């Protein structure tokens, strides 16, 4: 059984007399433990789709079913936001513990989970600091630790590394993969970087712009762990890159013509 089933989902935003179709006719099944990248030009509705999955928006039509084990008490999903999702008036450890605190779990469990993931993202020495004292990369580590510590079934990531410089991005991508491989959670990851999608995912969903549709569903059965060097040099992956590149080029050109 698929973990997530999306049927005939659409989203229309009304602005006065005008409306914008952000998403249209999305049909999708995502398996348990899959790492899926949503890849598309900006303004293609990928964030809207993620926000609907995160229950931050409601769909106009269609529905989403998330299958969770009935007895489990952990949350179905947690989101890693774009930059600035870390709450500035909470310290690193308070931020990481945020989800657990909101669920009012026993102090001991909260502390254990928080410690584990702070350690995991290498912020043990910074746990008492406030976000203003952290670099962009460290803030996103806090954001990732917060989501994993909450122990959800599904992780939703909205371009978490978009604002980072290249070096930091590579390091964080590797860290994310190592935590993911340990937990094997279902991940839906938004990006507009083809490299990033090829490096991280089991499956890439290419989206078209306005209204957002899934244009192409690409399964990647490349071996893990992958490195950015492999992504850049292996001919098989390069082939995939070009294929995706052409598709996106086509898409961007079409939106320009309208």
């Amino acid at each position, binding site marked *: 059984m698929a973990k997530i089933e999306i049927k005939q989902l659409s989203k229309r935003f009304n602005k006065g007399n005008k409306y914008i179709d952000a998403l249209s006719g999305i049909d999708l099944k995502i398996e348990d433990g899959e790492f899926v990248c949503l890849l598309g030009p900006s303004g293609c509705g990928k964030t809207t789709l993620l926000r609907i999955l995160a229950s931050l928006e409601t769909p106009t039509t269609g529905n989403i079913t998330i299958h969770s084990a009935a007895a489990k008490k952990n949350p179905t999903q947690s*989101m890693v*936001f774009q930059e*600035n999702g870390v709450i500035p008036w909470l310290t690193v450890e308070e931020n990481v513990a945020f989800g657990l*605190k*909101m669920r009012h779990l026993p102090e001991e469990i909260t502390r254990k989970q928080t410690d584990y993931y702070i350690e995991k993202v290498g912020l043990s020495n910074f746990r008492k600091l*406030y976000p203003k004292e952290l670099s962009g990369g460290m803030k996103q580590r806090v954001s990732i630790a917060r989501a994993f510590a909450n122990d959800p079934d599904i992780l939703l990531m909205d371009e978490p590394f978009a604002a980072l410089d290249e070096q930091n991005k590579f390091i964080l991508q590797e860290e994310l993969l190592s935590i993911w491989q340990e937990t094997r959670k279902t991940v839906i990851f938004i990006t507009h970087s083809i490299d990033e999608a090829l490096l991280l995912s089991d499956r890439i969903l290419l989206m078209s712009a306005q209204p957002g549709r899934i244009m192409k569903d690409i399964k990647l059965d490349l071996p893990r762990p992958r490195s950015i060097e492999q992504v850049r040099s292996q001919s098989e992956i390069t082939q995939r890159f070009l294929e995706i590149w052409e598709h996106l080029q086509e898409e961007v050109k079409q939106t320009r013509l309208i």
Partner: protein
Amino acid sequence: MHNNIFQLIKKVNLQQFITISSPLLLLLLWEICSNTGILDSRFFPPPTLIIHTMFQLGESGELFSHVSISLTRILLGFLLGVIPAICIGLLMGMYKYFRHFFSPIVMIFMPIPTLAMLPIILILFGIGEFSKMVTIAISVFFPVVINTAAGVANIDRIYLDVAKNYQANAKDFFFRIALPGAMPVMLEGIQMGQAIALLTIVAAEMIGANSGIGYLIWMNYKAFLLPEMYVGLILISFFGYIFSIILRGLEAKLLPWK
């Protein structure tokens, strides 16, 4: 390195020296002009005489009773205004129906100087201490209520999304997101309120009181005891400075993350 620290110390000392030098220079100029007759010493008694008068008044205990009565009025009136202002401001910021209900009332009363309402306050609350506290409370209420509501309304949307995604309930949302998020702008309002409170108490005591610093200034002016009047002015300046230092200290305590 040593050289740099040395230069830094020198720089700080120089800044402090310049900061202290301007009021001292002003006092010195005043002293000289007053003693040499450039300024009429009947209207502008030399600072040394004013300080001498202050000690005389202090010894008789008269000064202490005026000061303590004014401070009590300010403190209690301030609390009487700030506490409901914070509560209503938070509700206005968080719930739009509250906002729509309260903002016309705030807008109607805000432009009226509190002193213009003094007759009504006297009719309603009599001529006792309570009416003075109410006067201060009203004047403090408006800047605090407006800044608190604006503080909540200006919290970055992403933190509301984070709270929602991590399933914060209403109580947690209030104490972990709304209140701390609104705190910086709210404290600015309280700073403003403090300045207005001082202004109001002095004016109110000049009009309708027989004690307090404002009364001290006004009565001594009427009796042409100008050194005594200047003592009142110096005290106001002194307490204004003390209050703003206390509030700044409070701000550093409450906003370690800023």
